[in-house]
């Protein structure tokens, strides 16, 4: 039982913080970056690749660094701290994770090699208008056999969909189930737009678009489910980074901003609210660290459970901390020029990527009668 980073993990954190933290240390840089397409900094992306950060979760045979979820979580927390717009969660964790789990040897080497090297942006086209975080597809359908398939329908919103060089697409299979396909986005009809937090998403239309099955093909529902669970846990890590900075920015504001002739921390009502934010943050950090460790060696069932628990806590905490951060900042918290509101906007986006608190509450409520208590040590 150990909740601390070893020396190598510490070094990774310092390196990523040195790169990303420095790049976005001035909030204005982040504002300018997200204002122009593709919504992130390609040079920073390349530097992350040089650092080895993009290949962390993939095996060395596939061109990766052969690290694991804890290292990926470290990167995510650092990205969250400066709400960096680089599509790490989308491209590496989610889409890359699916390729690592289900791709053929050739697909893994090609796709993950290029991804790790920073040469190719990958996106997972899964959400459909009307869908709510299911691991299945219904509006995009696949037809064909062997390696010759076509897809028809609309995926939206697809994170990093407009910039992506390669798409991994989920689609309903003719004989039932949901398959995963590799698609060249040049053959799709895509329209990109900004998300609420300055990220990028797209509507992607498929109209008899050529698609190659990922790996052996067939029903990939359980692969998608685990891929989403992994992304939930890493997204929660990103949220922890953003919440930590939100809290500290708020505390610092309370000690410097004067009203009625005194600094705000003269008012106990405000201090108590900040103390409650700290409690939310620390409880969340504990459960997210735990879920990340489950990701290292848990079964897919254990991972699903840990992902839901971490996501539920993170959803509650990120709303609490995000809302209070703006409130305690007062009017300045509402402005786009000042960072704190953007943190809350980003936390809101993270909350809705892979299932919000109520979604996970419902999932957990469905099995609450199956156990007497929850023992994190087994």
């Amino acid at each position, binding site marked *: 039982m150990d909740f601390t980073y070893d020396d190598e993990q510490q070094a990774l954190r310092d390196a990523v913080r040195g790169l990303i933290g420095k790049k976005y240390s001035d909030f204005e840089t982040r504002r300018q970056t997200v204002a122009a397409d593709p919504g992130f900094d390609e040079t920073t992306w390349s530097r992350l690749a040089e650092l080895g950060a993009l290949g962390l979760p993939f095996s060395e045979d596939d061109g990766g660094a052969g690290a694991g979820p804890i290292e990926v979580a470290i990167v995510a927390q650092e990205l969250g701290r400066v709400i960096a717009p680089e599509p790490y969660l989308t491209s590496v964790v989610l889409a890359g994770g699916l390729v690592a789990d289900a791709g053929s040897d050739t697909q893994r080497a090609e796709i993950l090699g290029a991804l790790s090297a920073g040469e190719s942006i990958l996106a997972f086209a899964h959400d459909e208008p009307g869908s709510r975080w299911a691991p299945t597809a219904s509006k995009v359908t696949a037809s064909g056999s062997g390696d010759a398939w076509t897809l028809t329908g609309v995926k939206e919103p697809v994170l990093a969909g407009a910039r992506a060089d390669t798409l991994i697409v989920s689609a309903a299979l003719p004989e039932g189930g949901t398959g995963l396909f590799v698609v060249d986005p040049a053959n799709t009809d895509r329209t990109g737009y900004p998300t609420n937090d300055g990220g990028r998403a797209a509507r992607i239309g498929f109209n008899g678009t050529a698609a190659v099955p990922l790996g052996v093909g067939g029903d990939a529902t359980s692969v998608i489910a685990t891929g989403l669970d992994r992304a939930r846990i890493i997204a929660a890590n990103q949220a922890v980074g953003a919440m930590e900075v939100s809290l500290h920015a708020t505390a610092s504001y309370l000690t410097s901003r004067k009203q009625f002739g005194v600094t705000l921390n003269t008012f106990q009502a405000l201090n108590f609210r900040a103390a409650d934010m*700290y409690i939310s943050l*620390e409880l969340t950090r504990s459960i997210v660290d735990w879920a990340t460790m489950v990701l290292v060696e848990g079964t897919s069932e254990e991972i699903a459970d840990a992902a839901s628990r971490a996501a539920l806590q993170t959803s509650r905490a990120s709303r609490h901390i995000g809302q209070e951060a703006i409130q305690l900042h007062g009017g300045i918290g509402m402005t786009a020029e000042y960072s704190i509101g953007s943190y809350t906007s980003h936390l809101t986006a993270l909350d809705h990527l892979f299932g919000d608190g109520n979604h996970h509450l419902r999932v957990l409520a469905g099995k609450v009668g199956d156990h007497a208590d*929850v023992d994190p040590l087994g």
Partner: protein
Amino acid sequence: MHLKLSPEDAAFREELRTYFTTEIPQEIRDAVAQRRELTKEQIVTAHKILNKGGYAVPHWPTEWGGRGWTDLQRHIWHEELQRANVPLPLVFNSSMVGPVIAAFGSQEQKEKFLPATANLDIWWSQGFSEPDAGSDLASLRTTAEYVEDESGARFVVNGQKTWTTLGQYGDWIFCLVRTDPDVKKQAGISFLLIDMTTPGVTVRPIELIDGGHEVNEVWFEDVQVPAENLVGELNRGWDYAKFLLGNERVGVAPVGATKRVLASAKEWAGDLVAEDPFLAARFVELENELLALELTALRVSANSADGKPHPASSVLKLKGTELQQAVSELVVDIAGPGAIASGAGEGSDLEHWQARSTPAYLNLRKASIYGGSNEVQRQIIARTILGL
């Protein structure tokens, strides 16, 4: 970062489980599970059995019965006690006066008191709070005047203590008393041990909202206390009190006991859990928050190697008591109309837990008040962690 207990710690946990479930009488553990009020005899019996196995005062110096465990092992010990429904070692003895005497007492005091304290041959009461000194403990007014004459050196104690938990069972009471009224209020306080059979000591029960007599007022009228019962130096009592309140990092969050009650509540609710989605959701929220708290407690105890308290430890008492209260509230709701039947006797057709539900809920309102109210905890977080 890794999740599993080391083989040594896992074996350690197994050893505790075996001892607690085979050595502590079943009827005592059943009484805890059913949330019955324990008798003095049951508490003493359990404490002595724990002490026999070396499990009553493991955090004391090894010379006086301590075990030299890591914080993580102490955390495991604390959780397993609660998991097995074992009454915890009497906190006044094991966590309060014992460590203070071991750290600051004279050799004579150590020899006289520590073995008896570890074995609960002496039942200690705590005499800190006064009617005008609650969270603002240093405002206390009970005086101890030093007198030296032909009948010896002694303190003469006058004043009143309150909220003295289980004081009706107390053999001795450790008190903070004012020995110098003319200095800054923290600087004139001493730590005194008083035999409760001394003439002039009166214990009066206070009836609480749950109908129980758990706390008392203790009055001192010209109580003669031998000078040798002063712990440490004169006027240094505030330091010892801070040591007492601050050295406890393990067990400040009642995670294990709350988890156990929540698991029982699920059993008591039976089919309701499946039938009422709102109830299921409440279980999930509480279970998840308890999980986050338990993991925070583990994080704190597994990573406090440099001897300094982990910053997150301040979360434990606050959130721990909030969840303890929330679970007791859930049990009242599950009990339904049975929740009003607190006076139902053994002939009642209602379940015992239903009758106990409201007294337990009301009794636990104290948890966010004692040991530094939760408002004081928020103030500590704001000031010492957030720099506000």
